[in-house]
């Protein structure tokens, strides 16, 4: 039997990567100690873990700030993206007028518009600037995926709705939105990750507001050559990203599990 064809049990799916992680951490720890690598170049995993424990309160506060901006940006992007997508399929005119600007917003690097946004909202409202920048980054996948989804309704089903005299609202709620769900959820998975990236990049560029987010902790740690704390902050960021992804994947499974080919478990 070839390796590709061998069935993988769910337990193996978790155990194998965890085992690999432990091995890598051990090798890392041993190499750092054995070669006496300085802490400001590459700290040992144990040093990072110690830093995580001692700087726990300040890191957790920063995590909360980053998380809040990420979540708010994601929710706003989701609401605006879906709303604009719905508007754009109601009228071709709306679609052709909105889309070029959405694309411009998407292709312009967020780093480049950060100073402008900062001036507009005022330096005393940096958190608002962060929110706007993260939203801009997260917005486009939602808009483009939802628009595509709303348009990819089965033609016969559309005819059926017309046959039974469905109103616009009924067609949207009972046909177009459910049909767009798989696309929207795909967009949400991309956009959830982008909201976090947007929040971090924006904080690098714009600086921190009233409280410091994780990005600022990383900058600060680098300035003080406190590399273990930098790694600890990085670890938190990736964990946050993974959590967002898993939550959205879970939501997808929950909403599509019973009907959509992408989510249905098939027995062979």
């Amino acid at each position, binding site marked *: 039997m070839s390796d590709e064809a061998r069935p993988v049990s769910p337990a193996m799916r978790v155990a194998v990567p965890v085992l690999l992680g432990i091995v890598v951490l051990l090798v890392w720890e041993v190499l750092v100690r054995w070669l006496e690598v300085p802490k400001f170049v590459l700290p040992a995993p144990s040093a990072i873990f110690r830093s995580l424990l001692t700087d726990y309160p300040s890191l957790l506060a920063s995590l909360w700030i980053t998380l809040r901006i990420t979540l708010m940006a994601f929710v706003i992007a989701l609401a605006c993206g879906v709303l604009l997508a719905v508007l754009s399929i109601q009228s071709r005119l709306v679609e052709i007028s909105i889309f070029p600007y959405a694309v411009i917003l998407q292709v312009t690097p967020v780093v480049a518009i950060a100073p402008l946004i900062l001036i507009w909202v005022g330096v005393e409202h940096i958190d608002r600037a962060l929110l706007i920048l993260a939203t801009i980054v997260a917005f486009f996948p939602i808009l483009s995926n939802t628009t595509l989804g709303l348009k990819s309704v089965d033609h016969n089903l559309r005819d059926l709705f017309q*046959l039974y005299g469905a109103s616009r609202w009924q067609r949207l709620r*009972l046909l177009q939105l459910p049909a767009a769900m798989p696309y929207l959820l795909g967009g949400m998975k991309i956009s959830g990750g982008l909201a976090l990236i947007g929040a971090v990049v924006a904080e690098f560029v714009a600086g921190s507001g009233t409280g410091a987010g994780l990005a600022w902790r990383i900058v600060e740690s680098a300035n003080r050559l406190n590399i273990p704390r930098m790694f600890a902050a990085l670890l938190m960021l990736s964990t946050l990203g993974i959590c967002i992804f898993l939550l959205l994947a879970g939501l997808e499974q929950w909403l599509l599990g*019973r009907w959509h080919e992408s989510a249905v478990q098939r027995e062979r």
Partner: protein
Amino acid sequence: MDGVEPTRDTRAAGNTSKPALIRIAGVGKRYSGGTHALQGIDLTVAEGEFLSLLGPSGCGKSTLLRLIAGLGEPSEGSIDWPRGSYDAAGTPDRSIGFVFQEPTLMPWATVFENVYLPLRLDGKRRQDVAAQVEDAIAGVGLAGFVHAYPRQLSGGMRMRVSIARALVKRPKVLLMDEPFAALDEITRMRLNDDLLALWAGSGWTVLFVTHSVYESVYLSSRIAVMGTRPGHIRDLIEIDAPYPRDEAFRLSANYIEYCRITSTALRGAMGGQAHEP
């Protein structure tokens, strides 16, 4: 032949014993792309008949069915519903059920939700019509699958759901666009029989698009044979055999003879090209 001479009737109004339900006069359809789909269609559909539109692909039989359903407007001619009521805007209250070539179910909704859809679009509340929906599902033999999702059903079962949905509002006319073309022979025969049983117990009119000679003869009280370029009605053939029809009819000399007549008419409609029925 056991004394039955099949009647061939090429006049527009074939079945005159029952009142006309749909009157199609001089209907033509030309798409903006230049395709000339239909020309000079005259056809009167009588109440309670089982009329098949038979023809090769591209003869516009599906187009005609969609025009009757109100999905699109004819470029010329008119389609009247002499016995139907018209609303203020002049749109006829067609009271139709439509079955597409594919089951066309909403994959995200259960069998119940799919069949409930036409009533839901009318603003009927779920609890008020639950019995009616379940009756329609039971009527096509799927009583045990009310809460199943379409993907859990076989192709034939999905088509049954589609038929239940078309019948749930108890329409006067059932329009079917090659509904069983994608199914295997065995499933198809069973669905043919079940459809005839449903039709016998109801009194509605069926307009059935097909490209199968055997299927059309087995099911229909009348067959409109259509030709291409542009789509037109070539022959109207009355199938004068009593209902209920069953396996015995399928094996009778009468059936074979009607198949031969219909097949010949179809070959004529295709301009002498060979046709595999």
